């Protein structure tokens, strides 16, 4: 399949253009929601990579948090506010952490994998909440972001960040898409269904998982860094605590694993649902979120993307969460 035939690449690029145009239309609050959706979407994309091979992490707030805190700490202690540099560091740190933990985690599957991730994220939460140097539960506020020589203020800064985030996210999504097309990235069903066979074909499932885990870690860090810049503040409760990981999984389910664009759409919808639930029913917004999630699981098991697939008259991609029963 050549570049020109790749619908997803086209889709992503059109999406990029659309968002950049949208920048001039939308009000500020919506722009910041969009930017956040890009951040959360990236993490969900990371989950998608794992999910395709039947793995899911209930602790990806760990990488999200590491990405975010790297940015926060650089701003606080080194006075570095350059978006390019901080994001790069955030991504790398998260990636390294994922690489390290990967050696342990790659041995686990199913619910153990999910929960062990949660355990690690909770350890980070403990550390952050404990240490005043890391801002404790009050967290750390960032200095105003700069972009190389460009140092806009106020609303202009947010616009800059949005454009910046959109372009970066586009790049990331494209890379992930290419990865998923590669031999390594295609080891999804293989890992999910039959690692023994994969081993006898000449590649170990654990290595494949490790690679995927690092990819998802990098994405987590990227999302965290973007989020930190968008919010201008990092704190453990809204970035590392386990329900945050829950949100990411929520988004992943909502989106479905059909395509790399899905998580971003899912993230946006998630943000909107939350915003309005929060607005209109301040006392019971949780109930509404929960209800939505249930509804999705019950009636749209393969996520929103399955609608797109159905609408295209193509049967939902095989690489979905529900491996179902083997019927032979």
């Amino acid at each position, binding site marked *: 399949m050549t570049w020109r035939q790749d*619908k*997803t690449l*086209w*889709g*992503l*690029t*059109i*999406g990029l253009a*659309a*968002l950049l145009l*949208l920048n001039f*239309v*939308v*009000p*500020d*609050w*919506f722009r*910041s*929601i969009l930017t*956040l959706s890009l951040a959360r979407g990236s993490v969900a994309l990371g989950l998608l990579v794992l999910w395709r091979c039947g793995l899911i992490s209930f602790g990806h707030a760990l990488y999200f948090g590491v990405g975010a805190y790297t940015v926060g700490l650089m701003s606080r202690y080194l006075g570095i506010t350059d978006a390019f540099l901080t994001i790069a560091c955030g991504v790398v740190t998260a990636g390294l952490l994922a690489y390290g933990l990967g050696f342990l985690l790659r041995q686990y599957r199913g619910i153990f994998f999910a929960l062990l991730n949660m355990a690690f994220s909770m350890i980070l939460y403990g550390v952050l*909440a*404990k240490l*005043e140097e890391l*801002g*404790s*539960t*009050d*967290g750390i*506020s960032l200095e105003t972001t700069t972009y190389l020589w460009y140092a806009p203020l*106020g*609303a202009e800064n947010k616009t800059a960040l949005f454009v910046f985030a959109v372009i970066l996210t586009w790049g990331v999504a494209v890379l992930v898409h290419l990865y998923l097309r590669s031999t390594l990235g295609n080891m999804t069903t293989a890992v999910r269904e039959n690692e023994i066979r994969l081993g006898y074909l000449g590649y170990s499932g654990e290595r494949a998982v490790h690679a995927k885990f690092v990819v998802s870690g990098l994405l987590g860090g990227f999302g965290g860094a973007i*989020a930190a810049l968008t*919010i*201008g*503040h*990092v*704190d*453990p*409760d*809204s*970035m590392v*605590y386990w329900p945050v990981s829950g949100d990411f999984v929520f988004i992943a389910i909502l989106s479905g694993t059909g*395509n790399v*664009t899905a998580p*971003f*759409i899912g993230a*946006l*919808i998630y*943000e*909107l649902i939350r*915003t309005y639930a*929060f*607005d209109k029913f*301040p*006392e019971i*917004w*949780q109930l509404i979120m929960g209800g939505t999630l249930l509804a999705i699981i019950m009636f749209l098991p393969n996520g929103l993307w399955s*609608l*797109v697939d159905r*609408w295209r008259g193509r049967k939902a991609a095989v690489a979905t969460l529900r491996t179902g029963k083997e019927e032979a």
Partner: protein
Amino acid sequence: MNAIPRTRFMALGAALAVLLAAGAASAQTVKVAVPTFLTGGGAPTYGTASKNGVELVVRAINEGSLPAPYNSVGLAGRKIDLVVYDESGGGTKQVTELRNKVQKEGVDVVVGYVSSGSCAAIARVVEELRVLTLLTVCGTPRIFEELVKEPKYLFRIINHSTAGNVGAAHYVVKKLRNEAKDGYMGINQNYAWGQDAWRDFNLGVQTLAPELKPANKQQFPKLFSGQYGTEISVLLRAKQKVVHSSFWGGDIEALIAQGKARGLFKRKTFVFTVGEITAHRIGKKFPPGQLARGPYGLYAEGIDTPLNKWFRSEYRKAYKQPPSSPAYHYADGIVAAKYAYDTAMKANGGKFPSTDQVIKALEHATYDILAAKVKMSLGKGHQAVTSDRWGYAEWDDAKGEIVVKDVVEFKAECVNPPEGVNAADWVKGGMKGAKCD
């Protein structure tokens, strides 16, 4: 192909957004947003009371039935359009919500925030969004010392937590020297508020009475853990008799229940820096002990300014219980807004003032709140100081409610650092420039 649902969706989103932006900000009211805990662990202690307090005062202001000097209708003549929303969910959510409230719903004033976490998160955003914001509770002194050094739109209309804990130190040194001769220890929740509370209290005591020694290890149980059996054992074993605790909410109530069953409060003297709220709630079940609070809740009992009398009676009428301090804090927030708007209007020759004029009016101001006067003397005129009151709480069968005995009042200048001095450094540096008597 893939793009189509996306672009289509965006278009929709944008349309929606524009529409909403248009719908917002209606002319003849002042839209006041009030964030407080409606769900989660903060709701019981803070959420309910603060919501009640705000709604009571807002109703009165819109009717113009508040006692003098606030007996005119509305803020600078415009009725208040009140939006109360949930503060739970951490900084990220609060920042997003604040944006929505201001940019989407065109809120003019924000009055509230309980947790230091939320305050720290939104502090800079407030300045970016240029929205007048009156913080009502959040403890941390870092707001004006680190986060927003040149505040314009951000105010806090209550002491920061340092004052309360320095007050506690003063009180211990003054009244509990004897109990504290074997030293003192702390049990505080393991998060910023609890950690700061202990640091300020401890340094305070060390400055005032170096001979009183702290235990070498303090307890910092997880926030909302609710299980204190082991901690209680530690406390019971310790030789120190005085225990400092900034516990609040379900945690303090659990600690009391579990402690009572093991005679903890017979052996130890507790200094609960925010125990007042709980004493209020659980009344008879509250163990006799030392409590802090400024001129709010229980401590406001005696104060009979017309405002305070009105508030206490109306509150009891409306909610069948006396107002606790969160009720006061939030109500005071609204009152402060009222003061600022009305004063600004006068200055503006009776015309409705611009936000800048309102800010001018509030900076460095001295004005009446329900049960006291506050001076906006710190943080370049954006951080309030009030006196801090301490006393011994116990159940009064005659009254059928809990009361505080031999109240000591510490002047605002005594428990607060002077302008321009970072609270932590001030306490560490031996609280220089404190004016006590």
